[in-house]
């Protein structure tokens, strides 16, 4: 399985179908922001998101959305604060901010957020 850094460096894209986002890595999720919804509850009872891990990727189901593509413009992203699996979650240096942009043909472009993007952890 690829690490988050490898995915970003290799510009590996994820996928999306309806309200399902598939990202090609596993991580501890700390915060997700989609539109003006801030999700920090990743428990099985979460009303905003279901996180479902497979061997080589992670499925994220956004429960408030029927179709992600219809909800986000090309300038908007779904933003994540994540920690690589196996790394110390308590070390803030390991906290990564990534942004996922939805493109054509179900591709989800994954980038580390640049300095211009406003994203408060």
């Amino acid at each position: 399985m690829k690490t988050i850094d490898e995915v970003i460096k290799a510009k590996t894209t994820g996928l999306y179908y309806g309200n399902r986002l598939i990202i090609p890595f596993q991580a501890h999720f700390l915060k997700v922001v989609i539109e003006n919804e801030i999700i920090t509850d990743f428990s099985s009872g979460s009303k905003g998101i279901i996180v479902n891990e497979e061997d080589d990727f992670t499925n994220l189901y956004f429960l408030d959305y029927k179709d992600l593509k219809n909800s986000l413009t090309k300038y908007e992203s779904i933003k994540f604060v994540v920690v690589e699996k196996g790394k110390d979650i308590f070390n803030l240096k390991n906290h990564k901010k990534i942004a996922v942009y939805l493109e054509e043909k179900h591709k989800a472009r994954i980038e580390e957020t640049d300095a211009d993007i406003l994203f408060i952890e």
Partner: protein
Amino acid sequence: MKKYSPALILFFVLISDFLIASDSGSVISETQTVHQLPDTLMVIPFILLLLMIATGPLFYKHFWEHNYPKIAISLGIVTVVYYLVFLKDAHSLLHTLTEYLSFIALLSSLFVASGGILIKVDKKSTPLLNVFFLAFGAIISNVIGTTGASMLLIRPFIKINQNRIKPYHIIFFIFIVSNIGGALTPIGDPPLFLGFLRGVPFFWVIENVWYIWIPAMILILALFFIVDSFNKGNEETKLQQTYSGKIEFKGLKNLIYLGIIILSVFIDPGVLSFVPSLAPFPIGIREIIMFLVVYISFKTADKEVLKANEFDFEPIKEVAYLFVGIFATMIPALQLIAHEASVLRDELNAGIFYWATGILSGLLDNAPTYLNFLSAAMGKYGLDINIKSEVQEFVIHDEIYLQAISVAAVFFGAITYIGNGPNFMVKSICERAGINMPSFFTYIFRYSIIILIPIFTIIWYIFFLGKG
């Protein structure tokens, strides 16, 4: 979020069709129209909408997020049908539609034009820098309006504070830049602009409000400085951070669009006599220019800037939907208030005008509230708000009332998220940046009542108590 624009369009088309048919060829004149007062029960849709705006995001978030456009429009339609069928009063609806379109044209054009501008401030955040930043925002809001200043400055304000940002930063930003700052010129805030259109001289506001504005700003900024001084931020992150001290500006051409919007606010038959009126259509040349700016500035904006600003129409859509409901449902509330004010006008002093205009500006939209109370105050002297020369006479006659109404309409717009258009937009932008914003009630009880109401009480005590 679902799209309901066809429903909105249908709503406008239905109203416009009916109004054009019923008003065929007549010129709208408030002086010539006397309408029956609405039933008191007709304020229920308005109260219901306000309650839902307050409680929806708290107690039934998912239902609210998916259905607020339907709810706002449905409640608005109840009022519209009542006015058309029972009161046969198309004029009040057309007047409100005109005000709504004017309101949304200004907000949307400022929102889109400023969305194409990126200001990057790479400086270390300190309480003093924040105070200067907010003071600058307050001053600039008198030049580009509270909406323009809010949209332009909220992102750099969050950016410089990103390692220590707390909700109070945003709340004070809403207080100062999105509201109170813009009390010095008619461009600053919509109610003052409506007053200007009715005949209040352009510089009357600054001449008569500056000595209330300055102490209010000093008090709020001093409170902010004290609160911000206790915020030490994230020490670990701060140690790692280096600052270039640079201020970068991208999207220069959008400044021209902002300039066009500001100039276009004067393109009104009431200000420039050569500007044609498009009555009975609920839109003027000014609104057409503003909507054109929305289109052109979005189409020609720097894509990198839009991406950096994560540009999305959702915040302005949210304002457009909620306020279409607010504008429609508040018609009976405003008419009943205006009626009561005119009945009791001899008993009303400047202090009562101050508090009544203020509290209602916080709960209703401040622009029509301002006009209704101005109308009631002028009624004390037998003057008519619809006659420009009489407004000018009133200004000379006894400025304390206009002063109280002007200050209250602008200042109290800060006490709720719905008090002024930019409040909601700032909230939405902050949530998209990952900042958990206070709920409707928390905003009022933890911030407005504790910070603003004591300051507004001091202002009342010094400037308006026992006067008029």
